[in-house]
């Protein structure tokens, strides 16, 4: 193999880590080479993040050795990792909003504070790899992708030459992703070792030189990306063959169900979040919502669900016989009391959709506990529902009395979606329904959503993965800065056009 002549920057041998009875990593072997981008693949709970956390000093392995450039090392803390040139960029940014990029980058470093020199060094790093960062810009003025850039520059500034990125593209537009990939390639060509954790197969194929696959905490294998394909990698991750097509049946007898007119929403701080948004969601149809994160998707869904104070506009619920009911000014309870069966799978699953410390059965009760006139809660029905959800959606859990926070991301989402569709809704709102989920779980969720569609539910699907949105949605509404940039049919839509509409109202100038 051509890789043999490269030096292994990191050798992880026999790494084992358990959390209680759960074996997160089981004698994992992994080599990371300089001048190479390694994609670390695996389903949720397969131990990718755990493995990388041990490399970056957040966890300490129960067994096994790590060597850097042939020397055995012990990484006890993130500082040890930094000293060895290992830097990790986490999914959640760790930046101080009110400081500038340069201040954030030098924060916590020993030695005299010399912002001018720091800015110079930052500019040097930026021009070397093609980053676009203004060292004097405040973090709160930055877009998500700029913040991520600051995080990457931060670890480079500290001399990291082994970089680990945990799902870096989850928050980026296609254009921003392309830019990120370009700088990652520049860094690779400069001889840095790069590890990227991702679920998106097309990104793995586009970017990585080599893939390593984990399954259930065990190392399954690694190979040059050129010698494999998405289907083979997926099969290795899942352990059996899977099909990678998302169904999109034609909508059956679509009728207007939710009509939004001139919706305008301001945040508590008075910032305009949605401006004059109008659209109709039909029954038996999936309306996809595309947009850069933070463009009003959350406010849009929460306005419909009765959780967001609205400044102007109207949201009508239209019943089959054509009668209209206004939803604005009603809270979730009064919407339910009106007989509107509206289900909402929010973005923040454990902080909003579920109660992390409660068990599955108690979480099933959230929607139904008020039923009946008794002072006491009915404990049996939720238990039966929890059993049914566990069985039908193949939730992997020790039992229905396990707190949901102990479940992996995919299983948490199955529990939440399972509860929300159990009430036979007429409207289903979902926000980032497959964020952080592995392929298997994602396809389970797509199937569930398609089943609801077949039953005539009006589905509003806020997504971040454009490839999925283009395959799944019947129509796509593109938001740009809180305004409707356009509504286009999902069939035949083109990723570049949608990407342009996300960043510029109306997309192409000649449209």
């Amino acid at each position: 193999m051509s890789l043999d002549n490269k030096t292994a920057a990191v050798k992880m041998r026999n790494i084992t880590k358990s959390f209680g009875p759960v074996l997160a990593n089981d004698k994992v072997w992994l080599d990371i080479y300089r001048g190479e981008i390694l994609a670390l693949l695996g389903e949720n709970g397969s131990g990718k993040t755990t493995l990388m956390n041990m490399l970056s000093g957040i966890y300490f392995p129960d067994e096994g050795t790590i060597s850097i450039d042939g020397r055995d090392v012990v990484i006890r803390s993130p500082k040890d990792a930094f000293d060895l040139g290992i830097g990790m960029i986490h999914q959640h940014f760790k930046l101080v909003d009110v400081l500038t990029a340069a201040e954030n980058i030098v924060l916590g470093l020993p030695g005299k504070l010399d912002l001018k020199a720091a800015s110079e060094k930052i500019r040097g790093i930026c021009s070397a790899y093609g980053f676009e960062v203004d060292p004097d810009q405040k973090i709160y003025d930055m877009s998500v992708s700029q913040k991520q850039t600051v995080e990457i520059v931060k670890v480079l500034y500290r001399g990291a030459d082994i970089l680990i990125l945990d799902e870096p593209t989850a928050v980026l537009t296609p254009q921003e992703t392309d830019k990120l990939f370009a700088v990652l390639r520049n860094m690779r060509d400069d001889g840095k070792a790069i590890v990227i954790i991702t679920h998106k197969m097309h990104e793995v194929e586009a970017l990585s030189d080599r893939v390593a696959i984990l399954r259930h905490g065990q190392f399954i294998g690694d190979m040059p990306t050129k010698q494999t394909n998405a289907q083979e990698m997926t099969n290795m991750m899942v352990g059996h063959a899977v099909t990678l097509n998302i169904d999109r049946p034609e909508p059956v007898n679509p009728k207007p169900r939710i009509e939004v007119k001139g919706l305008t929403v301001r945040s508590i701080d008075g910032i305009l979040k949605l401006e004059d948004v109008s659209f109709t969601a039909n029954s038996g149809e999936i309306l996809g919502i595309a947009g850069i994160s933070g463009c009003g998707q959350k406010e849009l869904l929460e306005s419909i669900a009765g959780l967001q104070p609205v400044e102007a506009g109207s949201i009508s619920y239209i019943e089959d016989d054509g009668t209209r009911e206004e939803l604005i000014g009603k809270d979730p309870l009064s919407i339910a009391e009106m007989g509107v069966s509206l289900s909402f799978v929010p973005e923040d699953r454990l902080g909003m959709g579920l109660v992390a410390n409660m068990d599955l059965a108690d979480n099933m009760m959230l929607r139904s506990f008020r039923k009946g006139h008794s002072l006491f809660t009915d404990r049996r029905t939720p238990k039966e529902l929890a059993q049914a959800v566990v069985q039908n959606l193949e939730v992997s859990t020790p039992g229905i009395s396990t707190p949901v926070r102990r479940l992996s991301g995919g299983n948490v989402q199955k529990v939440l979606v399972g509860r929300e569709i159990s009430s036979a809704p007429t409207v289903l709102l979902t926000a980032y329904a497959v964020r952080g989920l592995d392929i298997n779980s994602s396809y389970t969720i797509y199937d569930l959503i398609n089943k609801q569609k077949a039953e005539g539910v009006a589905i509003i699907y806020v997504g971040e993965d454009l490839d999925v949105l283009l395959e799944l949605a019947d129509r796509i509404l593109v938001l740009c800065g809180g305004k409707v940039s356009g509504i286009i049919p999902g069939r035949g839509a083109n990723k570049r056009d949608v990407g342009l509409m996300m960043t510029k109202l109306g997309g192409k100038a000649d449209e």
Partner: protein
Amino acid sequence: MNNKAHNPLFHVSRRAALPWYRAWGIRAAALLIALLACALITNLITGLNPLAVYATIWQGSFGSARRAWVLFQNIAMLLCVSLAITPAFRMRCWNLGGDGQMLIGCLATTACMILLGGKLPNWVVILCMLVSSILAGAIWAAIPAIFKAKWNTNETLFTLMMNYVATQLVAYYIIIWEVPKGAGKIGIINQSTQAGWLPQIGSYKYLLNIIVVALVCVAMYVYLNYSKHGYEIAVVGESERTARYVGIKVERVIVRTMLLSGAVCGLAGMLLVGGTEHTLTTTITSGRGFTAVMVSWLAKFNPIWMVLTSFLLVFLERGAGQIATSFGLSSSYADILTGLILFFIIGSEFFINYQINFRHAAGKED
């Protein structure tokens, strides 16, 4: 060999949920170690036989029938306040005003006994005591609750400050109602007529209080674990956003739960004044509103376990007092022992949630 860096001697990692018997085994072991440590220190410092000291602690609680009754009365009072603050605690609303809410209940009871005693039939007086003390406690809790619900003020500080207001009010009324004039204290109220004194069951002075608190305990357990309100409290406590998402009116739940909390505190005040003390002082609550915080936390907010934790705390306190008198040790010494025991018990929670992994005997390097 030299280029091999050494693994740390041990590292700490989180445990998965332990089965209940292992968790309680750890707690029991902690108690045992605590007793051993106390014995060792007692022997080293005072030269006394630790077994004799422990026997005396036991004597302090169970040495005579009277002591046992006092023990159970004290447990009942502490448990009652602990039960009162628990619904608020389950809601992650830190009601540190249990003391003030209880004291204001004492004040309301005293007012009824002094102003109405002898003028109305006794059962009416007692009914007035009951209603007014519950109302007074509820109002004392409702004020911080409304401010928290409406303007998100900090309930910890607010309830804490309400304690001082209650103490000052009581001090004021003690001067107004003092007997005899200039004494600065109220003394036993209605000693001759016993008006407003809660009825005694048989010859057992404390039995009524104990029975009432036992009923409150069971009722609170059922309320918190099986009622719709209890479920709402749990959801609001875990996540206000989830509560709003499912249409729970968070403000209403906060105020309602704090009202309940204050009402039971007021009831505790009524039991204390009407049932056993028959007087009013500014320190009549003995800081139970604060000890209750520990009782509630140690029992993880479970009303049934709270019977055990309040027993533990009262038992230690009574025993501490006893060794102070029997051996002529300062009562601070008893506090040291209590502190040591609590240190071990609270510390054991760490070993329940985490485990320590020692470095594997470095076999590979040999």
